[in-house]
């Protein structure tokens, strides 16, 4: 009982302290899902912002993985306890967008505080993904990444492949993979993380073909999937064929395949640019190339952003919105963006930060770090390449993964797998928007 009493005393004292500081500065809560080095970046940015002024205090709170953070935000909103800012991963964008009453568009927040939001200063591919069909910016892009190709230079040399010229098309990747396997340079030629994100969503954008109707969902929620078009079918049949003798090796639904590459088991990997840190840390002799495109398509067009953005929740006071706006304004500053880009491996959001990084010798010292930006910036996005937005993208990805696994296990062909994914996916989308 005594201990309880003391604890209660402490709690009261703490509450008093925090309410005292709340009098001095308006607190802005920021729920995020960053771990390791990226979490340190979050703390540093929030700390620097707090030190730069005295009106607002940004309080970052770690809420678990991306889905856990989203769920925590949803539960908190339902209980009337939503945070001011919440970090939501790319896949959750559709979920947030469909919840118009729960969020406040970033453009509105900034304008309300008398700050101008100049779209032309931001990377076009990223802004397009986080905007409404009418162009209103909905969330603030915080950490964006893009899929690229990694290859093991030692394995390439052993297999007699050109170490300085990584394969540029899918056909070349598959040929190189076969060579790696048959020459015995590695147990498997090629593997990939995130089949859904890389081989469907980015495959569509990079080759400029439709993923679904209504501009892949960006123009409206009523989407019919188009992922059983011949280009997709041929691509996946090629992978399924390579999987038969282990030339392609499946690692799992998310980023598990990175381990196969790090262990030297597979010679080529397609993975998010955000995965670079682990590969650098492993000390392996690696090279980086562009995401391959299909030689039978019209690409390469541009890739779409993965990663996460910051959403502002609805129902807060004007004072809090002003604080959020001030923080976002701080986040867009060139030196902050440059810090974020160089420390975390995520892309800079503003063109000025990109130019500043280019001006320094960062890209010379860290080859490959520019590749994801060049991919995303290469061309102005078309209606096929702004990204994919579905009210239930996590569920649709689950369905696609299930069908891929059955295909890779040899239970069905690529045509059957993609037809089933389209049919089941369309039914799920109809259900989700029928609420």
């Amino acid at each position, binding site marked *: 009982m005594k201990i309880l009493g003391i604890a209660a005393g402490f709690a009261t004292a703490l509450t008093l302290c925090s309410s005292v500081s709340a009098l001095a500065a308006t607190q802005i809560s920021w729920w995020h899902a960053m771990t390791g080095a990226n979490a340190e970046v979050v703390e540093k940015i929030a700390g620097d912002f707090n030190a730069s002024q005295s009106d607002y205090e940004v309080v970052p709170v770690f809420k678990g993985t991306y889905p856990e953070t989203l769920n925590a935000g949803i539960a908190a909103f339902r209980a009337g306890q939503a945070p001011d800012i919440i970090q939501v991963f790319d896949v959750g964008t559709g979920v947030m967008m*469909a919840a118009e009453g729960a969020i406040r568009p970033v453009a509105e927040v900034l304008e309300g505080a008398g700050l101008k939001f100049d779209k032309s200063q931001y990377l076009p591919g990223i802004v397009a993904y986080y905007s409404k069909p009418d162009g209103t910016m909905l969330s603030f892009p915080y950490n964006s990444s893009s899929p690229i190709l990694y290859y093991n230079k030692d394995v390439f040399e052993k297999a007699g492949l050109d170490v300085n010229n990584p394969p540029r098309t899918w056909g070349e990747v598959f040929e190189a993979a076969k060579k790696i396997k048959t020459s015995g340079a590695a147990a498997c030629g090629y593997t990939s993380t995130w089949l859904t994100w890389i081989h469907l969503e980015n495959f569509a954008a990079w080759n400029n073909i439709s993923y679904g109707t209504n501009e892949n969902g960006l123009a409206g929620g009523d989407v019919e999937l188009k992922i059983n078009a011949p280009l997709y079918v041929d691509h996946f049949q090629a992978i399924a064929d390579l999987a038969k003798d282990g030339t392609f090796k499946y690692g799992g639904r998310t980023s598990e395949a990175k381990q196969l590459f790090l262990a030297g088991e597979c010679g080529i990997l397609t993975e998010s640019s955000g995965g670079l840190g682990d590969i650098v840390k492993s000390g392996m002799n690696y090279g980086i190339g562009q995401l391959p495109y299909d030689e039978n398509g019209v690409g390469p067009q541009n890739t779409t952003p993965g990663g996460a953005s910051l959403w502002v929740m609805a129902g807060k006071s004007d004072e809090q919105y002003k604080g959020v706006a001030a923080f976002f304004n701080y986040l867009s500053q060139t030196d902050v963006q440059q810090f974020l880009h160089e420390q975390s491996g995520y892309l800079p959001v503003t063109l000025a930060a990109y130019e500043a990084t280019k001006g320094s010798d960062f890209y010379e010292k860290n080859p490959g770090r520019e590749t994801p930006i060049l991919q995303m910036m290469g061309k102005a996005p078309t209606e096929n390449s702004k990204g994919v937005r579905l009210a239930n993208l996590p569920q649709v990805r689950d369905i696609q993964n299930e069908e891929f*696994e059955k295909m890779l*296990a040899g239970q069905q062909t690529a045509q059957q797998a993609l037809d089933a994914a389209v049919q089941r996916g369309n039914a799920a989308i109809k259900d989700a928007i029928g609420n």
Partner: protein
Amino acid sequence: MTPRVVFPNRILPYLLLAPQLAITLVFFYLPAVQALYQSMLREDPFGLRSRFVWFANFRKVLADPAYLNALHVTVVFSVATAVVAMGVALLLAVMADKVVRSRGLYRTLLIWPYAVAPAIAGMLFLFMFNPSIGTLAVLLRKAGIAWDPLLNSTDAMVLVVTAAAWKQISYNFLFFVAGLQAIPKSLIEAAAIDGAREVKRFWTIVFPLLAPTTFFLLVINTTYAFFDTFGIIHAVTGGGPGKATETLVYKVYNDGFVNLILGESAAQSVILMIIVIALTAIQFRYVERKVHYG
């Protein structure tokens, strides 16, 4: 005749019961009622628009081939887990019963796995059987077995059953050892003098006398496999490949917390609630009568 204790105070017994009742009310009845209510709603994740739809969610869930698949997976998984966990535990108990020296040590060691949390057990097996880095997976491959739980449904099922059963063996072992000790030595010795060999003695004397324990454990193990193995499946396969290891409990989680289809997820949990009530009723009605905790 046992003497009856009479409380002179009429309020005191209720006061003494109150804390327990309050906890049950807040942590069980309230969420259960809420789940029941939510199972008849269709709403978006944020609860901005919701519609009362009576039993539409139940109809949808029960007509969904994926739900029937989950039911099938759950039955296969539960039966396999119960059989393996009980079979191995019985074998170990019979062996441990024979050991004379350091019998206490063996028993203590065999009980340890029960203290391991399901998610940790899952991770252990995941590492040991991981196709690319697992020690045991490498041995399997050297033995010429194409081990691939990532894509092969049977391998995945074998893996989760092994992990789930391993964790439950200790518990079963304890009960079997107690059951074996309760069997009179004289019966076994008489049979031995009559010339019955060990295997014969086991099947004709020991096993029938263990029947109440076995039946009790069967119910406990089935319930365990049904409801307490979420952590293992979540850590090892995540329900895949395809939907090969997606059990009913895992589907409730996946539909509710990953896919954010709250109404259908709630409907599934109500169905699970009914299954639990039925299983518990069976256990109390039949099992408690037959098992004698000697």
